[in-house]
């Protein structure tokens, strides 16, 4: 019996103590008609067998050099990070409700909150929500609550309560984030309206103006945006605040070691900063678990969803940590909670905290600047191929849109066949960019990786006309 320690003797003694003839009798309150027969699943296998079977599957997906980002980034992860996270004490503990038995996790989260606040230029942070996309959804709900209240206080304008509440998406925000946020907030009558991007790949300012005409509750802007480009965030914040909207910034935390933190944008700064913590020491993991973070100003802390750890004292006057402001949460406030979130992404926060400690500000900055420089080299290398060009010319962080002059889906498939994860075919997001690949190079990509990609791409584009079936050059690889 895998994982069940009972001996026959144990079972007999226990049933005897209960006074039940058999285990089955313990289910006698379940109507017989509701009992099921054997489940339609295969018989159990040993750890060895399962490992062998799933290792074989994992091998099939083992990736070559990865030039794909689009919200998940292939950074180097110091070995210490997961060696520490995998300690049973972190990995197999529950949510730190019993503070005295959870000082490890609690202090770690407090340190995490401090680090995230510092990175984003905000004052407080929560202990995570599910991922970047759900963090945006929660931020929208939070901004709506916060701004409603502000409006009641008469701070932000007319205070007209309409049936639908509007939130404006400024510029190129990750489409999956927008979709997720839309799906999550629509039940509460909140509508997302998007400016789209203009020819520069960043916010269409004209349309933004129009959408601000009737003041929305909040404005969302992503920096760097989902095309890798730098948005005019100072202008966006200025305009949004002028219209009485709160500003929600979506930011890649690694970029914040290099780029101006949202708290410093314009004069007033963003009000809520959210995003995905994956770049901070979390493997690509086929999409998750990652974690969503949300930071904000102190004044909005009671609207912040998710757990928050505070420093307090024990009865002996010694400092110690505890979950705080729990009255915001579902297990206390139930239907009136700031969010329904309960289980969050604690272990990933652990990873990110260890990661940020190891790297420090200087280390993160080195990584961010190296990513930028490596991506520039990648872009140089690839655009030196005939017919490949940069689609937008503005400054980018570590992702760039390349027009490959033909359907990018096919190109991505072919690079994958050659063992290279070559980037995102942007037609999936924006039909008008069907010939474009969004490429990314983190600090992990070597010159050899870039050269290999260039060679593969060269081959693909040159053989474009005659689909490469058993061509001479193939044979010699």
């Amino acid at each position, binding site marked *: *019996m895998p*994982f*069940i320690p*009972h001996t026959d003797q144990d079972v007999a003694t226990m049933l005897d*103590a*209960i*006074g039940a003839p058999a285990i089955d009798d*313990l289910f006698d*309150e379940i109507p017989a*008609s509701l009992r*099921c027969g*054997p*489940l339609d*699943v295969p018989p159990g*296998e040993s*750890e060895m067998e399962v490992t062998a079977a799933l*290792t074989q*599957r994992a091998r*099939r*997906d083992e*990736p070559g050099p990865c030039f*794909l980002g689009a919200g998940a980034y*292939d950074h180097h992860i110091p070995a210490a990070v997961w060696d520490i996270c995998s300690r*049973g004490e972190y990995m197999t503990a*529950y949510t730190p409700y019993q503070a*005295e038995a*959870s000082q*490890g996790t609690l*202090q770690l989260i*407090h*340190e995490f909150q401090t680090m995230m606040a510092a*990175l984003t230029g905000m004052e407080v942070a929560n202990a995570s929500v599910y991922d970047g996309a*759900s963090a945006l959804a929660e931020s929208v709900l939070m901004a709506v609550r916060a701004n409603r209240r502000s409006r009641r206080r008469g701070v932000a304008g007319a205070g007209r309560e309409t049936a639908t509440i509007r939130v404006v998406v400024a510029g190129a925000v990750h489409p999956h984030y927008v*979709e997720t946020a839309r*799906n999550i907030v629509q*039940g509460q009558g909140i509508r997302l309206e998007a400016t789209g991007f203009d020819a520069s790949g960043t916010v269409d300012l004209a349309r933004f103006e129009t959408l601000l005409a009737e003041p929305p509750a909040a404005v969302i802007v992503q920096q760097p945006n989902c095309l890798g480009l730098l948005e005019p965030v100072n202008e966006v914040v200025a305009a949004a605040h002028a219209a009485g909207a709160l500003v929600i910034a979506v930011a890649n935390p690694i970029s914040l070691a290099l780029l101006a933190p949202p708290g410093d944008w314009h004069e007033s700064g963003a009000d809520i900063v959210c995003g995905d913590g994956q770049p901070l020491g979390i493997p690509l*993991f086929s*999409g*998750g678990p990652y974690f969503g973070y949300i930071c904000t100003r102190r004044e909005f802390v009671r609207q912040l969803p998710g757990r928050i750890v505070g*420093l307090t004292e*024990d*009865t002996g006057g010694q400092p*110690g940590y*505890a979950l*705080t402001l*729990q*009255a915001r949460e*579902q297990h206390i406030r139930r*239907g009136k*909670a700031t969010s*329904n*979130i309960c*289980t969050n992404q*604690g*272990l990933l926060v*652990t990873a990110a905290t260890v990661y*940020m400690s*190891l790297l420090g500000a*200087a280390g993160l900055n080195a990584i961010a600047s190296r990513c*930028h420089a490596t991506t520039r080299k990648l872009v140089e290398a690839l655009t030196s191929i005939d017919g490949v060009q940069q689609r937008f010319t503005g400054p980018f962080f570590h992702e760039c849109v390349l027009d490959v002059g033909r359907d990018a889906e096919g190109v991505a498939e072919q690079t994958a066949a050659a063992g290279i994860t070559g980037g995102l075919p942007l037609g999936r997001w924006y039909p008008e960019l069907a010939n474009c690949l969004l490429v990314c190079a983190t600090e992990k990509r070597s010159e050899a990786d870039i050269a290999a990609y260039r060679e593969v791409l060269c081959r693909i584009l040159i053989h474009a006309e005659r689909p490469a079936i058993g061509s001479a050059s193939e044979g010699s690889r």
Partner: protein
Amino acid sequence: MSTSIFDIGAPGRGAAAQRPAPGDVSDLPPEALRRKPPRLPEVSELQTVRHYTNLSRRNFSIDNQFYPLGSCTMKYNPRGAHRIASLPGFAGRHPLAELAASQGFLACLHELQEVLKAATGMAAVSAAPMAGAQGEFAGIAMIRAYHDARGDTERREIIVPDAAHGTNPASAVMCGYVAREVPVGADGDVDFEALKAAVGEQTAGIMLTNPSTCGVFERRIADIADVVHDAGGLLYYDGANLNAVLGTARPGDMGFDVLHVNLHKTFATPHGGGGPGAGPVGANERLAPYLPTPMAAKEGDTYRWVEPADAPDSIGRLSAFAGNAGILLRALAYARMLGRDGMRRVGEFATLNANYLMERLRQQGFELAYPERRASHEFVITFRQEAKEFGISAMDIAKRLLDHGIHAPTTYFPLLVPECFLIEPTETETKEELDAFVTALTQVLGEVRTDPERVKTAPHNLPSARLDDVKAARDLRLVHEPD
């Protein structure tokens, strides 16, 4: 508290082996750049390792001690499942990788969907939700989509028992519904008459946990299903307690239309000090079209994603990618190790352990909240007597239990039972461990009578004495302040 990581650093110190050579950023507009570096720790690699290794030791965890936390299913988390999820092919796979480089992962995802269908009796499963609460959100959103699709748009209420977990009403509200509570009776079952009275044409659906959060099986579930269905409502099954009936009874057979499963409970993926989990949703034929995307589909020998185009009625995506993939892999590995018989035994032995522990405690004089009932995989005891007589709270007793090296059961949940413990031993604990718990709790109870002060001021043997929650909330210190 341990010295903060911020207080052990020195300006300029760092883990040099982790730093790449910086790159040139002179092409970036200066106004886009950060002016002052963020205040992050400045510590060596050894300092980091030592700090977080030592911090970890200030935690209780399953790997360290018995952790009978009701509703949370703190059972053994197989290390083998952790290793499998960490294989380079899974851990290194980009979520947007091309299909040809995703067949291994998709095969796993598809297989997990099939396992969950079999275990729950549902027609289709989407593993997209990232925890139970997101599963609830998805399920209620599906119920709403279903009604909306039929033009049945005036249903405004979701019914939840007053004993329900807080996420239930919170999820309902998040979907735009009003959460309407119905009382649970003295026997732990939902008050059927009150329920009948509450159900009507305004009812979009009901959320039930079964076995319930009172630790008992909802005996009239079939009747409840009839009442709700007859009124045009749908039934949502909160799968947090599936562990109790795994392999013995299936929600699909009980009349539920949609449900979630907390993989981090029933499927033994570790809780990680708060998460991550995963909350796949299952639905019967009626609600299947509304399942969130993406999902895995199989065609012949190849796998593909179910795209929005294939699921026009889907409530859509709930995360940037495809949910907590790594947790799904852990659950699959665990499910395969269990297999058919193993799954049934999970429910059986979780139930055996709970009933044994309940019986032993009853014999020791503890007051059961539902003394006439079988325990499911958990049960409720109440200290209302002790509270009255000695001014001792359930929380005091919980804290004192920590001193015995045992994690406290869930306290004050369900909310309707005063001064209660919800105790869930799980099937992976030995009889000896249960007996030790009885001994410890009995000892604490003795102390309540002989030395209540000692209990009120517990814990005494932990890194911290009792922490002041009120001060924490009043005097908010949410980030580390430099001295």
